[in-house]
């Protein structure tokens, strides 16, 4: 049965070999070694132990910082939703007034998404000074890109049937949009936005590290002075609040779709 070899089998092995080469090349690039990993373990363990005994006197301030981070996420997500909404329709192949508009707006959305929130936050901190406002703008802009792309995908998968039915009944463009397009996309838009809010709540906690306000500000100061017990307190607040938001948000999303 020598002839019974699946054609193209060699491609699999070539792929595995290629991956092995790239893996070793990357490991050398980051100077990863088992020795260095073991060397760092005792210090890592000490830090973890220090964080496990949080400084409860910072509980209140951590919580207040977290509230600001959540506010940043909430406002940022809302800004993203509002800006993504028109862009998504202009970028969609089926609803967009023109093929060129679809292409152009898709590229705009792609461009926006190339910038990580933290880089955007650095820009906005430089322009507007440190604080939560810069964080809100960074999250708002990034969410515009990511929500816009996801919204556009929803718009492109709607059932054209109801649109035809409304046109046949004498509806103009605005009425077709309102009665055939909106009811199809709105629940999906809201579910995606809630999911984005969960991601943004996490992102907002990190943005403080570059001066964009919220609980990250407390963390970055505590880190500077190696106050691991304060870092531990802030982390605990982040974990609890983020978990609560995730639970509530995913329960809501299940009801929407």
């Amino acid at each position, binding site marked *: 049965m020598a002839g019974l070899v699946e054609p193209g089998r060699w491609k699999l092995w070539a792929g595995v070999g290629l991956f092995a080469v790239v893996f070793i090349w990357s490991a050398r690039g980051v100077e990863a070694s088992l020795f260095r990993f073991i060397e760092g373990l005792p210090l890592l363990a000490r830090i973890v132990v220090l964080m496990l005994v949080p400084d409860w006197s910072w509980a209140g301030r951590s919580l207040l910082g977290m509230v600001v981070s959540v506010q940043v996420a909430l406002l940022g997500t809302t800004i993203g939703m509002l800006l993504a909404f028109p862009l998504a329709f202009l970028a969609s192949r089926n609803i967009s007034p023109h093929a060129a508009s679809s292409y152009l707006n898709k590229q705009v959305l792609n461009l926006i998404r190339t910038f990580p929130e933290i880089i955007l936050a650095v820009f906005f901190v430089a322009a507007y000074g440190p604080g939560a406002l810069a964080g809100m703008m960074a999250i708002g802009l990034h969410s515009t890109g990511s929500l816009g792309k996801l919204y556009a995908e929803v718009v492109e998968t709607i059932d054209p049937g109801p649109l035809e039915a409304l046109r*046949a009944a004498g509806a103009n463009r605005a*009425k077709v949009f309102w009665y055939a397009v909106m009811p199809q996309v709105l629940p999906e838009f809201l579910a995606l936005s809630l999911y984005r809010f969960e991601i943004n709540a996490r992102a907002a906690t990190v943005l403080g590290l570059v001066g964009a306000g919220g609980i990250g500000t407390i963390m970055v100061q505590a880190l500077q002075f190696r106050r691991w017990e304060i870092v531990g307190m802030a982390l605990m607040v982040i974990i609890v609040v983020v978990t609560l938001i995730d639970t509530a948000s995913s329960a809501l999303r299940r009801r929407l779709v």
Partner: protein
Amino acid sequence: MSSPQIELRGVEVHFPGGVQALRGVDLSVQRGEFVAIVGLSGAGKSTLLRTVNRLVEPTAGSVWFEGEDLTAAPPARLLEVRAQIGMIFQTFNLVKRSSVLRNVLAGRVGRLSTWRALLGWFPRRDLEIVHGALLKLDIQDKAFVRADVLSGGQQQRVGIARALAQEPKVILADEPVASLDPPTSHVVMRDLRRINQEGITVLINLHFIDLAREYAHRVVGLRDGQVVYDGPAGEVDDATFEQIYGRALKSDDFRGLDAEG
């Protein structure tokens, strides 16, 4: 003979890419008729139906509705005429996650001013008309149910209720029973017959021979974008259909018997 309600004069439709769906169709329909358009899939039935309300623009020829040249009508006037012509579809074309009530209300928006439509501010009379349509199709107890939980037959009745909510003069039905089982098909066909008996013209695309013969007054045969037969339904026999289809008849050219007699 009175002037026809719907008239197609030399209508041709070419789609981009060189496909010609209709090749010079002449057809006139009198008020109150029940006309079945039969033919194989691809013969141009859907295109023909959609030229009547100009969902498909004729490349040549003209479409007349109650003495008015629709092909020359300005956009706003076209919308007014469309509001008087109900349409039902093979796949129902409902907003699946909206309630039955909202779907049927959509039949009223054509006559509503845009700002009232966007606010959802329907006049009391509209709500009464919608209620009447739900009653007529016997789906009033489903008004607040999401459309996608209904059976196919019930969804098609929502589609018919939406068309009736327009208080139409004509109903265009594009293969309305093709996705339904035989008993449900007959239920829907009887609904359409009842509507027709109340004075609404029905123009229906069918590929089931027995349904066309049983329910229609008149059969128009379409092959390759041309009308190849036009006569009273009572005079149509299997030979006529073989001539329209250009091949011998098969069992799936028939929908089958009505279980309820």
